[in-house]
């Protein structure tokens, strides 16, 4: 099964947020989505998740347009973790993960042992089984993020979509979370801010700028000095290590924001 956008555009009111995006997510891959703030990553993620219908073009799951598949069926195939979803409700970790079973439940198919089993598995795959009975509001940021991922996994999706999953986590938890996600047996699309993380974990990277998808390819193809300067406006050297991985080394004083400093020196 593939997830595909065909010439997709999306407007917020009259403002074009993304336009003419075509992208095909292959089964089993870890696809990273990078781009500066406001380049349309989040909008594209929500179109890809089927939460927003494209204003133009088509979003396809398999060979069917998403709008013909229906919300409930989409939710059985695509799990989506937003940036920073929080709640003031007093719920336990297990209850939060249990929400992932929503697309499978109805009056005629109430909660069953199977659902409990699936929730248990999902908790296990993010190593949160011990904390299953903790209250949500007692969790740290990293734990909350892992619970969100477990909730998405409880949907038993083929695709896991993560919008900046490592925001607000310390470096240890950032790496831990991405390693964990990479090891999961699902196709992953993740919007990432840290380009070194994108280089380390992604099979392919899609780069966005001003609402357009400007390049898709392997990390070595996308993360070039040229692209970093043109799209992100920073100067950097790219080193390829002996395992073929890129590492980005940024240069200080070239981002265009240091004019004041230079003036002072002068």
């Amino acid at each position, binding site marked *: 099964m593939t997830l595909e956008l065909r010439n997709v555009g999306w407007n917020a009111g009259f403002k074009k947020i993304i336009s003419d995006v075509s992208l095909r997510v292959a089964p089993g891959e870890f696809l990273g989505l990078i781009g500066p703030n406001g380049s349309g990553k989040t909008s594209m993620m*929500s179109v890809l*998740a089927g*939460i927003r219908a494209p204003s133009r073009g088509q979003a396809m799951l398999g060979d069917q347009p998403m709008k013909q598949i229906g*919300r*409930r*069926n*989409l*939710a*059985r195939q*695509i*799990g*989506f973790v*937003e940036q920073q*979803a*929080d*709640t*003031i*409700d*007093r*719920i336990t970790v297990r*209850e*939060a993960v249990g*929400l*992932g079973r*929503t*697309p499978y*439940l*109805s*009056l005629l*198919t*109430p*909660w*069953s*042992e*199977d*659902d409990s*089993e*699936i929730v248990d*598995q999902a908790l296990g*795959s993010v190593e949160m089984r011990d904390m299953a009975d903790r209250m949500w509001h007692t969790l740290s940021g990293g734990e909350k993020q892992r619970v*969100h991922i477990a909730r*998405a*996994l409880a*949907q*038993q999706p083929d695709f896991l979509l993560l919008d900046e999953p490592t925001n607000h986590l310390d470096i240890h938890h950032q790496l831990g979370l991405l390693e964990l996600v990479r090891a999961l*047996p*699902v196709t992953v699309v993740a919007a990432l801010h840290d380009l070194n993380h994108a280089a380390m974990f992604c099979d392919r990277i899609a780069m966005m700028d001003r609402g357009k998808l400007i390049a898709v390819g392997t990390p070595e193809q996308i993360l070039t000095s040229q692209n970093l300067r043109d799209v992100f406006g920073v100067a950097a050297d790219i080193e390829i290590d002996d395992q073929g991985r890129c590492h980005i080394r940024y240069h200080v004083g070239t981002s265009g924001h240091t004019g004041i400093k230079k003036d002072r020196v002068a």
Partner: protein
Amino acid sequence: MFEKTQDQSPAKSRAGRAYLGRIGATGVALVLLVGVIAIAAAKGETHIPLGTVLQTIANHLWQAGYDVDPIDSGIIWNYRISRALVAAACGASLALSGAVLQALLRNSLADPYLLGISAGASTGAVSVAILGFGAGMVSLSLGAFLGALVAFGFVALLAIPAGRGPAAIILAGVAGSQLFNALTSFIVTKAATADEARGIMFWLLGNLSGVRWPDVYLALPVALGGLLVCLWHARSLDAFTFGVESAASLGVPVRRVYAVLIAVAAMMTAVMVSIVGSIGFVGLVIPHAARFFVGTRHGILLPVSALIGAVFLVLADVVSRIILDGQVLPIGVITALIGAPAFALILCHGRVLR
């Protein structure tokens, strides 16, 4: 690792047990409710023994043929039972609407009157009572109901272009309520005599005095129907725990659920307000009290909210009838006077437990 399982045999027995448990709990709830209503029928300016109350009920429900004083029987059946039933339906509806709106709008301060309904109802009521709208063909209740619908329509029309999200709905509700409250004040100040103004104020604070059986036939089906629709959507409401987008990603048809549940909450509230006036506090606070007892999952929260709301309002009505000799206090005064300190207790207690 994440295969989709089909086998459901052990699941069935567990579901069956849960089903039996639910029937048992419903039974207990109904007994509690009937008990409170019986007490409500016994208490009042003239105290009537509980035995007589039960005999009267038996006489009316299945012609039991007990020998009951016809005056007592009349008071119990025609005045107090009908009044208690409407109070129960009203308390349940307001609490349910509050619980549903708090869940949908992700706001603990949401209450049934947020949608402009009580403001619209009072405008409707003063239009009929003071301006003579409808030339005697429209009753106060019908006027209030129409006013509530107009105000809700106004709020809905305002919320749709404003973005349909929780914030848009809340702000549209505030704007609508302010507008219709201003209209009410304008009409009262311009045209009302002192007596009319006092009567309207009494009505606005909630008043069960004129309630009879025809009101029961309206209030009870609306409350029960509303409860069923809300229960039907209990899982969808759970899915709103982490907000609207998260609900959408869990497969909930967000727009449809919003439209259906907000319309149902508005209808329930409009009907109740048109019968008894705008009783405050119940819709805001009872859901929080219920959450404190049974948690936030709507499959259990909604029926428990409805039950607590019903019991609370029946008891509040009893207190409003007996607290002052020879005078009935507006029930809205009682709900706030008892409710606010009780809620404060729950709040502080809950805080300590955290």
